């Protein structure tokens, strides 16, 4: 396999703050790689360094074997980029915006290509509407088409799904996967949305405060998850105080605290003990109406990685 994006000890410092801290990345050709992290983790800064738009403080980068600092144009010619909160020229139509990008890339005879891209992202009908009238979701889809105008071999997408409706998200993720599998495009996807990254990415790096705290396939990361405790939200009809007592009396149940929904309880369970706990509740006569594993949402997983990281540094 060929390494498409490689960074070693990549560091960006603003003042005292290491926004990106000794980042080592190795992304293989044709891979969909997820950079998962909360806002302000340094994802966008990393991307801008890969594109040669921000000067790294330290470290080396190779994109398609090229150093973006020395050959920015060559890198930009082969890398399609969808920025976070992408914008377009409001007075120009979607199609005119794409034409402009095509001209900046020195392409000729691009009309057919642009038509097929607009079709691909589902904007064929709105193509001749002014981009200023587009919704955020439409702009984002136009942004994907825009990134594809140059027929890139690497596609970097910064939060590509934030403003798209759920149906659109599924289409977008399918499109990303298709580009990678059928056209061999290497995709770097930066997002804070865990489940989206999970479904589409071959490998994921969890990126917190400029550092990669975990890296691997989504499966591998989930395995790390099982080794520790899980948080589960229980919704039980009837007297909340009584259901709390019931919960606390069961084995494998750790701390219990009030959940977000009134009357619900969030309990810390030993991994794998959820079926037994629910069984115990039901056996005790509790009217369980809802069970929701909180660990599946990103916040909890991040918190876990934060904890691991703090333990390491402590």
């Amino acid at each position, binding site marked *: 396999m060929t390494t498409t994006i490689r960074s070693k000890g990549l560091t960006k410092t603003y003042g005292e703050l290491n926004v990106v801290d000794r980042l080592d990345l190795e992304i293989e050709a044709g891979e969909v790689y997820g950079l998962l992290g909360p806002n302000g983790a340094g994802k966008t800064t990393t991307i801008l360094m890969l594109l040669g*738009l921000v000067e790294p403080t330290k470290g080396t980068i190779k994109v398609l074997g090229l150093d973006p600092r020395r050959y920015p144009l060559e890198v930009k010619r082969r890398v399609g980029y969808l*920025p976070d909160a992408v*914008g377009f020229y409001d007075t120009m139509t979607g199609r005119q915006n794409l034409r402009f990008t095509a001209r900046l890339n020195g392409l000729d005879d691009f009309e057919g290509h642009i038509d097929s891209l607009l079709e691909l992202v589902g904007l064929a009908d709105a193509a001749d509407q002014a981009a200023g009238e587009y919704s955020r979701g439409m702009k984002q889809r136009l942004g994907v088409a825009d990134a594809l105008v140059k027929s890139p071999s690497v596609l970097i997408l910064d939060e590509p799904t934030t403003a798209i409706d759920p149906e659109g998200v599924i289409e977008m993720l399918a499109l990303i996967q298709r580009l990678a599998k059928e056209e061999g495009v290497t995709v770097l996807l930066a997002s804070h949305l865990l489940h989206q990254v999970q479904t589409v990415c071959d490998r994921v790096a969890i990126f917190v405060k400029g550092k990669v705290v975990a890296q691997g396939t989504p499966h591998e990361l989930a395995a790390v998850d099982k080794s520790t405790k899980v948080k589960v939200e229980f919704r039980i009809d009837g007297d909340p105080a009584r259901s709390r007592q019931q919960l606390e009396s069961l084995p494998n149940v750790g701390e219990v605290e009030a959940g977000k929904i009134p009357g619900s309880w969030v309990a810390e369970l030993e991994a794998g003990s959820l079926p037994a706990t629910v069984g115990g509740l039901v056996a005790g006569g509790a009217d369980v109406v809802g069970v929701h594993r909180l660990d599946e949402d990103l916040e909890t997983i991040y918190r876990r990685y934060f904890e691991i990281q703090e333990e390491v540094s402590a």
Partner: protein
Amino acid sequence: MTTETTEPEAVELERERVGGWRAVARKEIADHLLSGRFVVLMGVLGIATAAAVFAASGGIRDVAPNAQGITALFLKLFTVTVDPVPFPLIVFVGFLAPLLGIMFGFDAVSGERSQGTLPRLLSQPIHRDEVILGKFVAGLTVVAIMLTALVLFVSGIGVFRLGVVPSPTEISRLAVWLVFAIIYVGFWQALATLSSVLAKRASTSAMIPIGVWLVLTLFGSFLFSAVAGVLSPRDGSQAAEVAYLRTTQTVSQLSPVTLFQQGSSVLLDPEVRTVGLVTVEQVDRAIVSELNLTQSLGVVWPQIAILVALASVMYALAYVAFMRDEVRA
């Protein structure tokens, strides 16, 4: 594990790139020509010019029969003051032309930033300076179109009202003046572009050059006398007075507004022989004669050179500021 492209190959490819600034300029020109501000500016300029020229041509028609020996009658259209319009056309152009440059420059970069198009634009395979260059060329092209149309419009009215056709010398004087005016607008556009790089919002970036413009056009003379008063204080003697006036003149020539007025008056009026301080002895018994274009150019060479220098410095500053600008802001 191998890399896909070796570096020397990439160097080869880098050389055969296309001029991305042309694509930028092409888009910007289309934008400007279709924009509301172009229509408004063109309308304002057109109406004001028409009024000024009608008044001037009327005035010239009244005096023309008695005017013997005036060869450049046609150019008087641009330089003569006649009621009810309080100033000649070139003063009017000198006053409004900066506004053209500011209008086509103030949102060059801040506009990209506020629309969120800057990261997308900079991730295309063009050099950063091509963005600035393309925008600058586009703005100046549109300004050149507007000023040329203006001059042709004035000439058209002039021919119609005066029945005088401009001579070849007059046409060449007008052409030189047009280039001079475009350079003048270039200074203001570069200033506005610089401001658009530095200011985070388009409204702020418009205020800076408009402020400079107002101060230099409205309060320029106070400013220059004040500075001159400090540099060479007056003590009542004639020598000190002359020194003071000379200093005022020198200081004022650092202002593009003054440079443009002086340059215009010489370029469009063959009778004007100097822009400097002239004593009574110097003009005593001077023969009234007219300069040819080369001689006029000789008189205003310094003005042209300083104006070009000021515009270049401004452009260079905008360029440097943009090259150092962080994409994230």
